[in-house]
């Protein structure tokens, strides 16, 4: 089984004044290609820290994080940026679109930071438009985020996460701000992407959302406490 990403004995310690807080205390998870994992846990369980590490926004204190064959734990800041750009597609709870940009421009943003190729060509433009249509915003490509509903904004974020063909998609409470109808819509979209073969790691604390994933991982006190659905 080919792995999209893999964490081995991942530890993350923070220094708060004189006290060392161990947010992650040895987490090992394999993420095979085409996986759809829901990471659950109460606040303070370390799931946010894990997500930050998986997103290459931070480096672990100990342990290894391998994505696409690269060990992130020993990378420089610029290399981390390149990894985030190339390997990871982010979907946030609060959408995190750039307010002054249109739908197309928001989808385009990761392309600006591509390593190697510079200008955005006609081919890229076509791809961006294709993504906008794919998430159902073909008729709103020139709208700005404030002109869109929450669900529509999240769909823009999904399109943006896909623009660089990432190794894994990291979704942080993707439906946390949405009503149940829109939640359903977004989850449908993620499931479709997963069926197309994309690897998705989703953080959520809603069991009915987590249930839709292929597997569930529960975090507690900085370690993996169990897998599968915990009723309640």
């Amino acid at each position, binding site marked *: 089984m080919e792995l999209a990403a893999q964490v081995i004995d991942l530890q993350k310690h923070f220094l708060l004044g004189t006290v060392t807080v161990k947010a992650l205390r040895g987490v090992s998870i394999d993420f095979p290609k085409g996986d759809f994992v829901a990471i659950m846990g109460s606040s303070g369980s370390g799931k946010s820290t894990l997500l*930050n590490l998986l*997103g290459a*926004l*931070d480096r672990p204190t100990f342990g290894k994080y391998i994505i696409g064959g690269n060990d992130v734990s020993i990378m420089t*800041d*610029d290399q981390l*940026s*390149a990894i*985030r*750009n*190339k390997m990871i597609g*982010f979907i*946030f709870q609060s959408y*995190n*679109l*750039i*307010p*002054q*940009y249109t739908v197309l*421009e928001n989808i385009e*943003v*990761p392309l*600006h*930071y*591509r*390593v*190697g190729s*510079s*200008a*955005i060509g006609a081919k890229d433009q076509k791809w961006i438009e294709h993504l906008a249509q794919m998430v159902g915003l073909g008729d709103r490509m020139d709208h700005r985020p404030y002109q869109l509903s929450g669900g529509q904004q999240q769909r823009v974020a999904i399109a*943006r996460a896909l623009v*660089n063909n990432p190794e894994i998609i990291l979704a942080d409470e993707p439906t946390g701000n949405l009503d149940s109808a829109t939640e359903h819509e977004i989850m449908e979209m993620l499931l479709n992407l997963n069926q197309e073969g994309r690897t998705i790691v989703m953080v959520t604390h809603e069991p009915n959302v987590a249930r839709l994933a292929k597997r569930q991982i529960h975090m507690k006190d900085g370690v993996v406490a169990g897998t599968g659905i915990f009723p309640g």
Partner: protein
Amino acid sequence: MFNLIRTVELALKSLLLHKLRSGLTMLGIVFGVFSVIAMLAIGEGASQQAQEQVLKLGATNIIVRSVKPPRENAGDRAQNSFVLRYGLLRADFDLLSRTIPTIEQAIPIRELTKPCRYLHREMNCRIVGCTPDYRDVNHLQMAQGRFITDEDRSRKDNVAVLAAGAAQTLFQYEDPLGKTVKIADKRYAIVGVTESREASAAIGGSMSGQDYNNDIYIPLETMRVRMGDLDVDRRTGSFSAEEVQLNQITLRIVDKDQVVPTAAVIRESLAYNHKNPNQYSVVVPQELLKQAEQIKIIFNVVLGSIAAISLIVGGIGIMNIMLATVTERTREIGIRRALGAKQSDITAQFLTETMVLSGSGGLIGVILGLLTPPAFEGVKWLATKFMLEGGQATSEVGTMFLSLTPKIVWSSLPLAFGISVGIGVIFGLYPARAAARMDPIEALRHE
């Protein structure tokens, strides 16, 4: 990695999001650049004006003028008498013109202000006793008739040449040629009228600004015979008299390079005849020209510093706004970092925004600067229309202001624009670095 045009386009987009804020921020740079260009233009105009006036005096000329000393220390003898004796002597003229070989031409002048009459019309004119060479040295053009000749001098004829203004005031629509004008109760036949001549502005300490249009020229010898050296001024309750032989000697030197050494010799020669060196002054246009150039340099430095200060203030304004913008857009920075922006990308983004801001400010400033000369004309027009009586400047400063024409210094345009962009880089670097150094996780969490 990043496409320049696209980066500038997106920077513009971010700036246009806060039009008023961006506009106000830009204003500092606009005025800075504008003042650099405008001040240099006015400085250049003033300096060209000064140089032209000095050149009008003649680069190969030396002008020696009598200076009226203050009454109380006018000299030993004058203290006890009513008659104030001062100034250049005919002996000086002889001494200079005969002993100094580098002097090509020497023109003595005696000036007096006298009431002149034609029929019922009367005005005070400056009566200039001079020689035929006077016309040549001062580049006078004749409108009618002839100038004074050597024959007039030797015969001590009562002939007069009117300047355009005097002719206009006294004769109005009549033809002055062949008529007579009454100067200090004596009649003079008018033989010529000159074209009007531009007024000179004050140069140095001894040459005051002069309007030549009310001059009347008569032969020097005639003046000596008819009016004498003594000028008595009787007024109710006061009586004063002064005795002056010559008011001015204009000397033309054979060669430009000889002017400065000759001036030194002239100063020494005059000291021989005069105990008190305050009675006359030697004006060397070439020296004035050098002074004018030095003044121009000082002027430019002072103006440049003022403009530089306003540009720096503008830059600080930009920095202030950019720091606020960076804080305000912390989340956007976090998003970009999460999507793969390197620290250098963030620096480049904010630096571009600052440069677009200061650059467009600079561009507007350059355009405003180019409008300086017409705007200045407008100010002059308003001043003549509403502030000055009869459209005439009464003070020397006023005359100078009215005759000043700003000249755009073309090299100042790219310079000022370049400085404005440079200011953008310098003052934008700190906020841009501050943005780039943010922790992406913290930035994403920022509300």
